[in-house]
Protein backbone atom coordinates (compact mmCIF):
# COMPACT_ATOMS: atom_id res chain seq x y z
CA UNK A 1 0.00 0.00 0.00
CA UNK A 2 1.19 3.49 -0.72
CA UNK A 3 0.28 6.82 0.82
CA UNK A 4 0.56 10.31 -0.62
CA UNK A 5 0.65 13.58 1.28
CA UNK A 6 -0.41 16.55 -0.83
CA UNK A 7 1.48 19.81 -0.41
CA UNK A 8 -0.08 23.14 -1.31
CA UNK A 9 1.73 26.43 -0.95
CA UNK A 10 1.18 27.10 2.76
CA UNK A 11 0.64 23.52 3.93
CA UNK A 12 2.55 23.05 7.18
CA UNK A 13 1.55 19.67 8.63
CA UNK A 14 2.76 17.73 5.60
CA UNK A 15 5.92 16.51 7.32
CA UNK A 16 3.98 15.43 10.41
CA UNK A 17 1.70 13.28 8.27
CA UNK A 18 4.66 11.88 6.33
CA UNK A 19 6.48 11.07 9.57
CA UNK A 20 3.51 9.21 11.01
CA UNK A 21 2.96 7.12 7.88
CA UNK A 22 6.61 6.20 7.52
CA UNK A 23 7.43 5.71 11.19
CA UNK A 24 4.24 4.54 12.89
CA UNK A 25 2.36 2.92 10.03
CA UNK A 26 5.60 1.73 8.43
CA UNK A 27 4.40 2.12 4.85
CA UNK A 28 5.77 3.88 1.77
CA UNK A 29 4.71 7.49 1.45
CA UNK A 30 5.41 10.30 -1.04
CA UNK A 31 4.91 14.01 -0.97
CA UNK A 32 2.69 15.12 -3.84
CA UNK A 33 3.13 18.71 -5.03
CA UNK A 34 -0.19 20.39 -5.80
CA UNK A 35 0.71 20.70 -9.49
CA UNK A 36 1.20 16.96 -9.86
CA UNK A 37 -1.88 15.25 -11.18
CA UNK A 38 -0.97 11.57 -11.31
CA UNK A 39 -2.32 9.76 -8.25
CA UNK A 40 -2.52 6.32 -9.86
CA UNK A 41 0.17 4.73 -7.70
CA UNK A 42 -1.51 5.67 -4.40
CA UNK A 43 -4.07 3.88 -2.25
CA UNK A 44 -4.70 6.74 0.14
CA UNK A 45 -3.98 10.45 0.07
CA UNK A 46 -3.77 12.82 3.01
CA UNK A 47 -4.59 16.49 2.61
CA UNK A 48 -2.67 17.95 5.52
CA UNK A 49 -3.19 20.96 7.72
CA UNK A 50 -1.76 24.39 7.24
CA UNK A 51 -2.74 27.63 5.59
CA UNK A 52 -2.93 26.79 1.90
CA UNK A 53 -2.76 29.99 -0.15
CA UNK A 54 -2.62 31.96 3.08
CA UNK A 55 -6.30 31.17 3.74
CA UNK A 56 -7.02 33.98 1.26
CA UNK A 57 -10.66 34.42 0.23
CA UNK A 58 -11.86 31.58 2.52
CA UNK A 59 -9.89 28.82 4.22
CA UNK A 60 -9.39 26.10 1.61
CA UNK A 61 -11.12 28.04 -1.16
CA UNK A 62 -8.14 28.57 -3.46
CA UNK A 63 -6.50 25.19 -2.89
CA UNK A 64 -9.60 23.66 -4.38
CA UNK A 65 -8.56 25.04 -7.78
CA UNK A 66 -5.07 23.52 -7.68
CA UNK A 67 -4.43 21.01 -10.49
CA UNK A 68 -4.15 18.07 -8.08
CA UNK A 69 -7.71 18.55 -6.87
CA UNK A 70 -9.26 17.27 -10.11
CA UNK A 71 -7.24 14.12 -9.57
CA UNK A 72 -8.36 13.94 -5.93
CA UNK A 73 -11.98 14.11 -7.14
CA UNK A 74 -11.40 11.18 -9.49
CA UNK A 75 -9.40 9.33 -6.83
CA UNK A 76 -12.29 9.68 -4.38
CA UNK A 77 -14.83 8.66 -7.02
CA UNK A 78 -12.86 5.43 -7.51
CA UNK A 79 -13.43 4.68 -3.84
CA UNK A 80 -9.85 5.27 -2.78
CA UNK A 81 -9.23 6.79 0.63
CA UNK A 82 -8.92 10.52 1.21
CA UNK A 83 -8.21 11.98 4.64
CA UNK A 84 -8.39 15.75 5.14
CA UNK A 85 -6.97 17.12 8.37
CA UNK A 86 -7.76 20.67 9.53
CA UNK A 87 -7.05 22.79 6.45
CA UNK A 88 -7.50 19.54 4.52
CA UNK A 89 -11.04 19.29 5.91
CA UNK A 90 -11.70 22.89 4.87
CA UNK A 91 -10.41 22.12 1.36
CA UNK A 92 -12.61 18.99 1.05
CA UNK A 93 -15.68 21.04 2.03
CA UNK A 94 -14.82 23.82 -0.43
CA UNK A 95 -14.29 21.20 -3.13
CA UNK A 96 -17.72 19.71 -2.43
CA UNK A 97 -16.29 16.30 -1.50
CA UNK A 98 -17.78 16.80 1.96
CA UNK A 99 -20.94 18.75 2.81
CA UNK A 100 -21.10 21.94 4.86
CA UNK A 101 -18.49 24.60 5.51
CA UNK A 102 -16.05 25.72 8.19
CA UNK A 103 -16.35 29.32 9.31
CA UNK A 104 -14.70 31.55 11.88
CA UNK A 105 -14.62 30.13 15.40
CA UNK A 106 -17.49 31.21 17.66
CA UNK A 107 -15.13 33.21 19.89
CA UNK A 108 -13.07 34.52 16.96
CA UNK A 109 -9.73 33.40 18.38
CA UNK A 110 -7.24 31.05 16.83
CA UNK A 111 -7.48 28.05 19.18
CA UNK A 112 -4.51 25.81 19.86
CA UNK A 113 -4.74 23.03 22.41
CA UNK A 114 -5.77 19.47 23.13
CA UNK A 115 -9.46 18.57 22.90
CA UNK A 116 -11.42 15.40 23.47
CA UNK A 117 -13.50 13.88 20.71
CA UNK A 118 -15.88 10.97 20.89
CA UNK A 119 -15.81 8.29 18.22
CA UNK A 120 -19.36 8.32 16.84
CA UNK A 121 -18.95 5.52 14.35
CA UNK A 122 -16.45 2.75 13.77
CA UNK A 123 -18.02 2.13 10.38
CA UNK A 124 -15.40 3.98 8.33
CA UNK A 125 -11.99 2.94 7.05
CA UNK A 126 -10.53 5.63 9.31
CA UNK A 127 -12.09 4.46 12.56
CA UNK A 128 -12.84 0.76 12.26
CA UNK A 129 -10.15 -0.12 14.80
CA UNK A 130 -11.57 2.38 17.27
CA UNK A 131 -14.29 1.76 19.81
CA UNK A 132 -17.57 3.57 19.26
CA UNK A 133 -18.13 5.89 22.19
CA UNK A 134 -14.42 5.93 22.95
CA UNK A 135 -12.71 9.25 23.67
CA UNK A 136 -9.58 10.43 21.89
CA UNK A 137 -7.37 13.30 22.92
CA UNK A 138 -5.99 15.24 19.96
CA UNK A 139 -4.76 18.77 19.39
CA UNK A 140 -6.63 21.40 17.41
CA UNK A 141 -5.04 24.51 15.90
CA UNK A 142 -7.43 26.60 13.85
CA UNK A 143 -9.31 29.87 13.51
CA UNK A 144 -11.95 28.54 11.09
CA UNK A 145 -13.13 25.28 12.55
CA UNK A 146 -16.74 26.17 13.24
CA UNK A 147 -18.66 23.57 11.24
CA UNK A 148 -21.91 24.80 9.71
CA UNK A 149 -24.48 23.07 7.54
CA UNK A 150 -28.19 23.40 6.88
CA UNK A 151 -30.84 21.36 8.69
CA UNK A 152 -31.31 18.94 5.80
CA UNK A 153 -27.59 18.18 5.68
CA UNK A 154 -27.41 17.65 9.43
CA UNK A 155 -30.37 15.23 9.31
CA UNK A 156 -28.71 13.34 6.48
CA UNK A 157 -25.38 13.15 8.33
CA UNK A 158 -27.15 11.81 11.41
CA UNK A 159 -29.37 9.40 9.53
CA UNK A 160 -26.48 7.89 7.57
CA UNK A 161 -24.18 7.78 10.59
CA UNK A 162 -21.66 10.04 8.87
CA UNK A 163 -20.69 12.15 11.87
CA UNK A 164 -17.41 10.48 12.77
CA UNK A 165 -16.12 12.58 15.68
CA UNK A 166 -17.82 15.02 18.08
CA UNK A 167 -16.20 17.30 20.63
CA UNK A 168 -16.84 16.01 24.14
CA UNK A 169 -15.54 16.25 27.69
CA UNK A 170 -13.07 13.80 29.24
CA UNK A 171 -15.94 11.45 30.13
CA UNK A 172 -17.27 11.35 26.59
CA UNK A 173 -20.22 13.66 27.28
CA UNK A 174 -20.99 15.86 24.29
CA UNK A 175 -21.64 19.24 25.90
CA UNK A 176 -21.72 22.86 24.79
CA UNK A 177 -18.83 23.58 27.19
CA UNK A 178 -16.73 20.96 25.38
CA UNK A 179 -17.39 22.60 22.00
CA UNK A 180 -14.25 24.63 21.32
CA UNK A 181 -15.35 26.54 18.23
CA UNK A 182 -19.14 26.61 18.02
CA UNK A 183 -19.44 23.75 15.54
CA UNK A 184 -22.98 22.64 14.82
CA UNK A 185 -23.88 19.56 16.88
CA UNK A 186 -20.27 19.55 18.22
CA UNK A 187 -19.14 18.10 14.89
CA UNK A 188 -15.36 17.59 14.69
CA UNK A 189 -15.24 15.21 11.73
CA UNK A 190 -17.52 13.76 9.05
CA UNK A 191 -17.31 11.39 6.11
CA UNK A 192 -18.92 11.31 2.68
CA UNK A 193 -21.82 9.10 1.68
CA UNK A 194 -19.47 6.40 0.36
CA UNK A 195 -17.42 6.65 3.59
CA UNK A 196 -14.05 6.75 1.78
CA UNK A 197 -13.48 10.50 2.31
CA UNK A 198 -13.16 11.88 5.82
CA UNK A 199 -12.36 15.34 7.10
CA UNK A 200 -11.69 16.38 10.68
CA UNK A 201 -10.42 19.49 12.43
CA UNK A 202 -8.33 17.79 15.17
CA UNK A 203 -4.84 16.59 14.24
CA UNK A 204 -4.43 12.81 14.66
CA UNK A 205 -0.97 13.06 13.09
CA UNK A 206 0.16 15.27 15.94
CA UNK A 207 -1.13 12.79 18.51
CA UNK A 208 0.89 9.71 17.66
CA UNK A 209 3.59 9.86 20.29
CA UNK A 210 3.27 10.00 24.08
CA UNK A 211 6.04 12.59 24.08
CA UNK A 212 3.60 14.93 22.30
CA UNK A 213 0.93 14.48 24.94
CA UNK A 214 -1.18 11.81 23.27
CA UNK A 215 -0.81 8.83 21.01
CA UNK A 216 -4.55 8.41 20.43
CA UNK A 217 -4.25 9.54 16.82
CA UNK A 218 -2.31 6.44 15.86
CA UNK A 219 -5.48 4.36 15.78
CA UNK A 220 -6.83 6.45 12.92
CA UNK A 221 -3.79 5.63 10.80
CA UNK A 222 -3.76 2.00 11.96
CA UNK A 223 -7.39 1.70 10.89
CA UNK A 224 -6.52 3.10 7.50
CA UNK A 225 -3.56 0.78 7.06
CA UNK A 226 -5.62 -2.17 8.28
CA UNK A 227 -8.30 -1.58 5.64
CA UNK A 228 -5.71 -1.24 2.88
CA UNK A 229 -3.90 -4.40 4.01
CA UNK A 230 -7.17 -6.35 3.91
CA UNK A 231 -8.02 -4.98 0.47
CA UNK A 232 -4.59 -5.86 -0.93
Amino acid at each position, binding site marked *: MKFGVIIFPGSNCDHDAYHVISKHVGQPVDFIWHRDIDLRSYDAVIIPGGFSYGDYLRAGALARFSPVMNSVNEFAAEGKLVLGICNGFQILCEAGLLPG*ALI*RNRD*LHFICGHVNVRVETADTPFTHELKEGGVLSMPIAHAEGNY*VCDDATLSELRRDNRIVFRYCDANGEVTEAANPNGSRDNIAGICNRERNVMGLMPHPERACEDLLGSSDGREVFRSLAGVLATAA
Partner: protein
Amino acid sequence: MSGRSPSLRLGVLTHGAADMKAKVYVTLKPSVLDPQGKAIQHSVELLGYQGIKDIRQGKYFEIAMDGFSDEEKARAEAMRMAREVLSNPIIEDFRVEIES
Protein backbone atom coordinates in the same frame (compact mmCIF):
# COMPACT_ATOMS: atom_id res chain seq x y z
CA MET B 1 -3.03 53.67 -25.44
CA SER B 2 -5.85 54.40 -23.11
CA GLY B 3 -7.86 51.50 -21.78
CA ARG B 4 -10.90 52.70 -23.66
CA SER B 5 -9.40 52.22 -27.10
CA PRO B 6 -10.70 49.37 -29.20
CA SER B 7 -8.30 46.53 -28.71
CA LEU B 8 -6.59 44.61 -31.45
CA ARG B 9 -6.20 41.41 -29.46
CA LEU B 10 -7.68 38.33 -31.04
CA GLY B 11 -10.78 36.57 -29.90
CA VAL B 12 -12.70 37.98 -27.01
CA LEU B 13 -12.48 41.63 -27.86
CA THR B 14 -15.10 43.45 -29.80
CA HIS B 15 -14.65 46.69 -31.64
CA GLY B 16 -15.74 49.53 -29.43
CA ALA B 17 -15.65 47.44 -26.24
CA ALA B 18 -15.14 49.61 -23.21
CA ASP B 19 -13.53 48.97 -19.87
CA MET B 20 -16.00 47.96 -17.24
CA LYS B 21 -15.87 47.37 -13.56
CA ALA B 22 -17.70 44.63 -11.75
CA LYS B 23 -18.47 45.19 -8.10
CA VAL B 24 -19.18 41.97 -6.25
CA TYR B 25 -20.64 41.98 -2.73
CA VAL B 26 -20.45 38.70 -0.82
CA THR B 27 -22.50 38.44 2.37
CA LEU B 28 -23.17 35.65 4.83
CA LYS B 29 -26.60 34.08 4.47
CA PRO B 30 -29.02 35.34 7.12
CA SER B 31 -29.12 31.85 8.65
CA VAL B 32 -25.35 31.78 9.25
CA LEU B 33 -24.11 33.35 12.49
CA ASP B 34 -21.48 36.05 12.01
CA PRO B 35 -19.19 36.14 15.06
CA GLN B 36 -17.05 38.88 13.50
CA GLY B 37 -20.05 41.12 12.88
CA LYS B 38 -21.20 40.50 16.46
CA ALA B 39 -17.79 41.48 17.85
CA ILE B 40 -17.81 44.69 15.79
CA GLN B 41 -21.32 45.47 16.97
CA HIS B 42 -20.26 44.94 20.56
CA SER B 43 -17.34 47.34 20.13
CA VAL B 44 -19.31 50.13 18.48
CA GLU B 45 -21.95 49.87 21.18
CA LEU B 46 -19.21 50.22 23.80
CA LEU B 47 -18.07 53.34 21.96
CA GLY B 48 -21.54 54.79 22.42
CA TYR B 49 -22.96 54.52 18.89
CA GLN B 50 -26.72 54.57 19.18
CA GLY B 51 -29.47 52.57 17.55
CA ILE B 52 -27.31 49.77 16.13
CA LYS B 53 -29.57 46.80 15.57
CA ASP B 54 -27.21 44.39 13.83
CA ILE B 55 -23.87 44.35 12.00
CA ARG B 56 -22.98 41.71 9.43
CA GLN B 57 -19.51 41.63 7.89
CA GLY B 58 -19.07 40.79 4.23
CA LYS B 59 -16.55 40.98 1.39
CA TYR B 60 -16.32 43.39 -1.51
CA PHE B 61 -14.45 42.82 -4.77
CA GLU B 62 -13.71 45.31 -7.56
CA ILE B 63 -12.96 43.57 -10.82
CA ALA B 64 -11.62 45.55 -13.76
CA MET B 65 -12.84 43.98 -16.98
CA ASP B 66 -12.40 44.72 -20.64
CA GLY B 67 -13.29 43.31 -24.01
CA PHE B 68 -17.00 42.80 -23.39
CA SER B 69 -19.32 44.12 -26.07
CA ASP B 70 -22.09 44.90 -23.60
CA GLU B 71 -22.86 45.06 -19.93
CA GLU B 72 -24.87 41.87 -19.90
CA LYS B 73 -21.97 39.77 -21.16
CA ALA B 74 -19.69 41.29 -18.53
CA ARG B 75 -22.35 40.71 -15.89
CA ALA B 76 -22.73 37.06 -16.87
CA GLU B 77 -18.98 36.49 -16.52
CA ALA B 78 -18.79 38.30 -13.17
CA MET B 79 -21.83 36.36 -11.90
CA ARG B 80 -20.19 33.08 -12.85
CA MET B 81 -16.99 34.09 -11.04
CA ALA B 82 -18.95 35.18 -7.97
CA ARG B 83 -20.87 31.92 -7.89
CA GLU B 84 -17.97 29.56 -8.54
CA VAL B 85 -15.07 31.25 -6.76
CA LEU B 86 -15.75 34.42 -4.79
CA SER B 87 -18.60 33.02 -2.71
CA ASN B 88 -19.34 29.69 -1.07
CA PRO B 89 -23.01 29.04 -1.83
CA ILE B 90 -23.39 26.97 1.34
CA ILE B 91 -22.84 29.96 3.60
CA GLU B 92 -22.88 33.07 1.41
CA ASP B 93 -25.00 35.12 -0.99
CA PHE B 94 -23.66 37.56 -3.56
CA ARG B 95 -24.72 40.56 -5.58
CA VAL B 96 -23.07 41.91 -8.75
CA GLU B 97 -23.12 45.46 -10.10
CA ILE B 98 -21.55 46.50 -13.40
CA GLU B 99 -20.16 49.98 -13.94
CA SER B 100 -19.11 51.05 -17.40
